């Protein structure tokens, strides 16, 4: 009794002591802030973040949330602010995954082998514009674009060539494709079957995120509701047949590249994520049946701390919403896994070698933010697709970070930084505010159809452009530190040969396949779509019969219709 009373007295004495210290700190910080505010500012200083937010001259313990322990947790623990694995990169480094594709499937197959031989650990397919839009290489609308910005894949035949000599049960493959995502996924699954691989072992990611296409990247085919229906079809089918496959990569990258701020990228992307969850649940799928296979993709821009805070906040918000709002019980549904890519929009055509440095800082931010995989841009990507040399430097940038800097040894090494924790909290607050605005717009789909997201993004983009043009934001080599005479840089040229080769390949394919089977399979797909059943099995049958991309698109478009963008500027 007596002992306990003494403890309590000691506790209360301690509390009073702490309160006194806190009050003293508050007074000191207030006085210090007043003094700091009166100090002169460097004339070329821009003390706002890249996103335009205000930044204090320094941060103190007073900037930490009262519940900092609960809000951050330990690495590998809810709400995963500090990372999804307890020891992060000690157990396994991030996957170094360079996005690549150009010309024909043969050309790109050789680039993949080049990258794999140099220590790259995963593949990432860049498709050309016709493929992204669901057009075959020999379609009139593809003229001049075949193989230019990525690889042309018009059927299973091209997919087989793309992965020739690359065992699909041994590599993980990411495919950046959205409008026709399910079609390319079926080509991939059929190619794996042809290799004799057990499709249950397939590992990789299909981007399959149509909502951000309407907002930013603009490679769409169908209107939102049928497009969302096919996405949920893929969730459902993959849960049963390809359980290790990430069925979607919910992407902030393109939203950011289109000019959004970090908080807009964060909030719009998460809102899209919630929209997919809601569509899955509305189908009757238990959230934990598809939740663990949802993955994300973030842009890593120039503002170092802002980007790290964005990644930490993203994990925390996702975990909280999945558990509390959607009732997920499987911790794998709470853990946000993501890929990062350094920001293409920050690369400059002027003095392009400086881009190596920009990319290195951005890569560091991605790793400090706990990414699962990373693409580092090559220095020449504002000029053309990258050369082998520039891609090698980009990959080496990651390897230097992984093996020479010591950064991967500690999980979330910046956790507890007054500034970073305050920024992370601020990001979360800003995102929650934007969720409320999206709700007020009638939800994600309605806010897309009214052009609300597109206007928000355009507004931020114009603000940044104005800051740059007025010299309020310095971009080295562009609006300051300019070199008058710059030497040329060697760039990769993709000529018209790929287009000619592809047309020939398509002619050969059309001549040798079983036309009756093609027609039968396409009709079956049309029936599946019209009857509103899961269309993936019928689509996979089309892929196996060498139906082409556009043939599949065309059948579905007859039933689903086409998306029309709201045009404005």
């Amino acid at each position: 009794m007596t002992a306990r009373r003494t403890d309590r007295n000691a506790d209360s004495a301690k509390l009073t002591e702490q309160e006194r210290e806190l009050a003293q700190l508050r007074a000191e910080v207030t006085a210090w802030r007043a003094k700091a505010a009166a100090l002169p500012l460097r004339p070329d200083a821009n003390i706002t973040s890249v996103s335009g937010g205000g930044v204090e001259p320094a941060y103190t313990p007073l900037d930490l949330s009262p519940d900092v322990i609960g809000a951050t947790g330990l690495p590998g623990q809810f709400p995963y602010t500090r990372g999804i694995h307890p020891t992060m990169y000690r157990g396994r480094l991030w996957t170094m995954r360079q996005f690549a594709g150009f010309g024909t499937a043969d050309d790109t197959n050789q680039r993949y082998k080049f990258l794999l031989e140099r220590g790259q650990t995963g593949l990432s397919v860049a498709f050309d514009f016709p493929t992204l839009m669901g057009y075959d290489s020999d379609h009139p609308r593809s003229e001049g674009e075949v193989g230019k910005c990525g690889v042309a894949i018009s059927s299973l035949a091209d997919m087989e060539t793309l992965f020739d000599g690359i065992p699909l049960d041994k590599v993980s493959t990411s495919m950046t494709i959205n409008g026709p995502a399910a079609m390319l996924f079926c080509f991939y699954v059929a190619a794996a079957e042809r290799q004799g691989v057990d499709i249950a072992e397939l590992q990789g990611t299909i981007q399959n995120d149509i909502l951000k296409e309407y907002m930013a990247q603009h490679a769409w085919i169908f209107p939102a509701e049928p497009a969302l229906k096919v996405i949920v079809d893929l969730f459902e089918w993959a849960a049963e047949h390809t359980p290790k496959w990430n069925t979607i990569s919910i992407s902030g990258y393109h939203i950011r590249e289109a000019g959004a701020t970090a908080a807009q990228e964060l909030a719009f992307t998460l809102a899209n994520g919630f929209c997919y969850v809601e569509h899955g649940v509305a189908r009757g799928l238990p959230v934990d049946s598809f939740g663990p296979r949802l993955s994300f993709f973030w842009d890593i821009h120039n503002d170092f701390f802002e980007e790290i805070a964005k990644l930490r906040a993203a994990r925390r918000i996702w975990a909280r919403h999945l558990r509390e709002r959607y009732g997920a019980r499987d911790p794998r549904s709470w853990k946000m896994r993501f890929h990062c890519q350094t920001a293409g929009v920050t690369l400059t055509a002027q003095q392009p070698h400086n881009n190596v440095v920009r990319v290195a800082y951005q890569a560091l931010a991605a790793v400090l933010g706990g990414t699962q995989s990373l693409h580092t841009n090559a220095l020449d990507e504002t000029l053309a697709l990258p050369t082998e040399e520039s891609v090698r430097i980009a990959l080496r940038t990651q390897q230097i970070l992984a093996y020479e800097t010591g950064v991967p040894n500690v999980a979330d090494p910046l956790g507890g930084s007054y500034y970073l924790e305050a920024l992370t909290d601020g990001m979360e607050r800003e995102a929650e505010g934007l969720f409320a605005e999206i709700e007020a717009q009638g939800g994600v789909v309605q806010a897309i159809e009214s052009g609300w997201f597109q206007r928000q993004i355009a507004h931020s983009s114009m603000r940044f452009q104005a800051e740059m043009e007025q010299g309020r934001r310095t971009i080295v080599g562009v609006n300051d530190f300019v070199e008058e005479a710059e030497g040329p840089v060697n760039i990769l040229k993709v000529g018209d040969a790929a287009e000619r080769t592809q047309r020939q390949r398509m002619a050969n394919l059309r001549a040798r396949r079983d036309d009756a089977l093609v027609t039968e399979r396409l009709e079956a797909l049309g029936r599946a779509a019209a009857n509103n059943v899961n269309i993936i099995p019928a689509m996979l049958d089309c892929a196996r019969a060498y139906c082409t991309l556009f043939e599949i698109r065309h059948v579905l478009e007859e039933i689903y219709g086409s998306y029309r963008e709201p045009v404005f500027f």
Partner: protein
Amino acid sequence: MTPAGSPSRNPRPIRVLVAKPGLDGHDRGAKVVAAALRDAGMEVVYTGLHQTPEMIATAAVQEDVDVVGLSILSGAHMTLFPRVRQLLEQMGRPDTLVTGGGIIPPEDMTALQQQGVGKLFGPGTPTSDLIEYIEQWAASHLES
């Protein structure tokens, strides 16, 4: 159609069609440029995405524009610029300035200029450069 240099044309602002030909969906640059030209006092029409050269030339004639600005980041510039230029000539509008920008290597810019396309602009160009170029072109071509 009003011939270049006719007095009826002088008082009106320069009319510009900003267009996104082909399948490329990168429209940040096109929208930034469209807004900057509008803010500089020009009348700007923006086509939206995924336009064919035929759609663009038709819109240029219908909107009676002086300038067509194409934004191409897909590598298809050697096909799309000459096609739009040629269609405008066929539709009786050879006087229209076809300019633009995007990711276009310098040697391709030169080759396109030799085919009658105007000046082309690369990434990082301040919008003031385009405004100045179009205003100068208009001063020597629209008012004489």
